């Protein structure tokens, strides 16, 4: 390929770091969750790149499973947020601190 695989790896790593920054710096629980989804997708990209470099189709299968698990996690996580909002009327992680002094 005329595009070096290092370029794909760099793109995936940059996306992962952006997702990590978002997960650490945002206060809205939904935004944190979105950043986590971005991290997972960046890892998908890295898996696909390595799979292409090695000529191994099992990377596609692993990415398939990652996507399925992300779907399950999103469903349950959002249900938790909805329940949290119903009881606390807020979804910011700074305010959900009843167990702290």
């Amino acid at each position, binding site marked *: *390929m*005329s*595009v070096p*695989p*290092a*370029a*794909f*790896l*760099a*793109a*995936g790593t*940059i*996306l*992962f*770091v*952006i997702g*990590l*920054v*978002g997960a*650490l*710096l*945002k206060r*809205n629980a939904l*935004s944190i969750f*979105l*950043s986590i*989804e*971005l991290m997972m*997708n960046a890892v*998908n*990209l*890295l898996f*696909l790149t390595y799979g292409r*470099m*090695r*000529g*191994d*189709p099992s990377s*596609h*299968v692993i*990415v*398939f*499973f990652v*996507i*399925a*698990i*992300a*779907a*399950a*996690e*999103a469903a*349950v996580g*959002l*249900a938790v*947020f*909805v*329940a949290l909002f*119903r009881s606390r009327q807020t*979804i*910011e992680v700074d305010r959900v601190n009843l167990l702290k002094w």
Partner: protein
Amino acid sequence: MTAELLLFAFAAGLAIAFALAMVVEKTPVRSVLSLVVTFFGITVLAVMLAAPFIAAIIMIVYAGAILVLFLFVIMLLNLNEEAREKDSRPVQRVLGLVSALALGGLLLGLTLRAGKPPVEPSALPGRIPALDEIPLVGRLLFSDYLFAFEAVAVLLLAAAVGALILSRRRMD
């Protein structure tokens, strides 16, 4: 500057730009939309990596179902802007950004240095022929990864039931 390099630059640039937009945006709805465009960029990159099936699956499942779920929950909870912070903590912000950049540089250096595969790809049997991976993936799913496949099916069922129960309104 071949067409492939231009396409890669466009897709990667789109993905990174809108990922930054997602992190910077204050409104959750715009964050979700920026993420949709990011996923579109990742889809184009996946097609360039000879994985059109995975690219379509990313659009259908991730951008078309999971993010729509996010959007519905945002509308259900009526989340608007993030409130203005009372204390802006500038020192911690700068420290956070610097350490994020440092981590990014570290990870980038590591991945780029480890880029050379240990085995020459053309020597491996079962190489992915370009753009024809669907029968291969199907066969792998039902032979080597059968247990994982069934386990993920049970996991999805458990997640669906769990989501239903967790978001039920108390009747008291």
